[in-house]
């Protein structure tokens, strides 16, 4: 009974529900009767069920920053990986230096240095960027870029592993057709490397969602900082950080579901077996996703 429930709902979702119930019980239970405990469940429930605009804002920032920083990270990672594998020595040196520095120092130090450090020394001030209806504040811009560049150093290794997993015969076939290095990479190698890159990329994004909490150091009101400040005002530290944790759990859990779906679809149709038939179903999403573009003809 429990097992089939778990199977149907997925372990992650079951865990989430369980966790919510547990926290709710603790929060509610501890507060009933015993005056010794200072717990006000209202704070917990309100920030989950009736989130105010600050929380909504924080959620939006956390998600938005994560997505853009991850995109920057993937792009930087692709270039750094190609740099590491380049024949031209200076490219290798630059790529290795970049990876060495950003993996070898704490993100918090990077954030402080590139935001506060550069500005205080009078070297560089991050500008406000107007993107359509919204202004991206300097600290948010800095946060996105530094997170992205930091992430790129980690993505580089993942992308490199992906590229190395592609049969060298593919590169040779592409070259023999007259493709340049750039065409070979973008049209032949990277679309195939994506198969290997996507699962760890999903884990990186899970990390990214949580790592954005460090941006509180730049006074960005993402999810963690929003809760942190209101906890400071209300002293409902226990209730609010519990709610904050639940919000992160919701984000990472939703992402987990999305991720496993992407991976499943992705591996479909790319196997070498013929078992699922030659019908058009096989070359739907998986194939399109692999080639990163729509097939020429359906």
């Amino acid at each position, binding site marked *: 009974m429990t097992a089939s429930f778990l199977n149907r709902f997925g372990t992650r979702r079951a865990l989430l529900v369980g966790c919510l119930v547990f926290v709710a019980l603790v929060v509610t239970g501890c507060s009933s009767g015993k005056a010794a405990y200072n717990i006000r469940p209202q704070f917990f429930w309100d920030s989950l069920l009736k989130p105010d605009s600050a929380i909504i804002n924080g959620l939006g920032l956390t998600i938005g920053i994560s997505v853009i920083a991850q995109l920057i990270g993937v792009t930087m990672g692709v270039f750094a990986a190609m740099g590491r594998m380049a024949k031209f020595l200076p490219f290798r040196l630059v790529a290795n230096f970049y990876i060495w520095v950003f993996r070898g120092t704490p993100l918090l130090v990077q954030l402080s240095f590139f935001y506060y450090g550069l500005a205080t020394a009078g070297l560089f001030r991050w500008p406000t960027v107007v993107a359509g209806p919204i202004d991206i504040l300097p600290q948010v811009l800095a946060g996105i870029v530094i997170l992205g560049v930091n992430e790129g150093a980690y993505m580089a290794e993942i992308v490199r592993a992906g590229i190395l997993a592609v049969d060298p015969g593919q590169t040779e076939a592409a070259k023999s057709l007259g493709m*340049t290095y750039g*065409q070979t990479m973008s049209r032949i190698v990277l*679309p*195939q490397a994506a198969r290997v890159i996507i699962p760890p990329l999903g884990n990186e994004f899970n990390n990214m969602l949580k790592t954005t909490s460090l941006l509180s150091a730049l006074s960005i009101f993402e999810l963690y900082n929003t809760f942190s400040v209101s906890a400071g005002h209300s002293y409902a530290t226990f209730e609010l950080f519990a709610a904050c944790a639940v919000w992160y759990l919701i984000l990472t859990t939703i992402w987990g579901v999305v991720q496993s779906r992407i991976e499943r679809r992705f591996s479909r149709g790319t196997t070498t077996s013929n078992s699922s038939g030659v019908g058009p179903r096989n070359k739907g999403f998986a194939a399109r996703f692999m080639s990163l573009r729509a097939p*020429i003809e359906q």
Partner: protein
Amino acid sequence: MTTVSDNLLGAIGGVPRPETDVVVDARDVNKYFGRLHVLKDVCLQVKRQETVVVIGPSGSGKTTFIRCVNHLEKIQGGRIFVNGHLIGYRETGGGKLVEDREKNISLQRQEIGMVFQRFNLFPHMTALENIVEAPIHVRGIPEEEARVVGRALLERVGLAAKENVYPNQLSGGQQQRIAIARALAMKPALMLFDEPTSALDPEMIGEVLEVMKELAREGMTMIVVSHEMGFAREVANRVVMMDDGVVVEEGTPDQVFSAPSQERTKTFLSKIL
């Protein structure tokens, strides 16, 4: 069995005209892998519309040689001309050779089709996409036009029904025929084949050889590394025997197979026959 009904080269607008009578002119080619001397003063000329079959024991340098012809391998000595153009290198003032720019090498490779032992089709593209990829993105031919040519090629290699199928759903023989069509779609002046049937199950060898024979008869210039005697006897103008990085013997199929002049050729033939 596939019947290659219509003219294969008709699909790409006739026999691509090589610019010179001697399409391949390899002079004293020397190649080392580290300290291993793999090609030793190899000379080979292939005239327009000729089919040359290269045979020789494993490790004799056959693959290495044809990979040098489209500069998938660097050479350390000698020169290879295709269509009168020096492949992979340009001469400096002092007569020294330096490796050419990537862009020029890519341009040269567009004129040279290559078919690999293990097909190397792009697994993330359908049969037709494999064929039109380079014409569209390398040659810059309009998509519609490339697809018309691609479909015609698929039909001529007997796989018109497979245009939307991915390589992993095709047999080895079918994949290799598509690989040949993919190379032909670039309208190359020269085709290189590296043991195109040796990774195939016996029952699929015939269908691939059939396409290659057709190509040879229609006047494509080809270098074929293969131990398929029947194929060589039927369409080869010349057979070249390599051993230990050296061309030991060269002649018509009859000369080489029936009356080899070199001891090494005799030994080798006695092993594969």
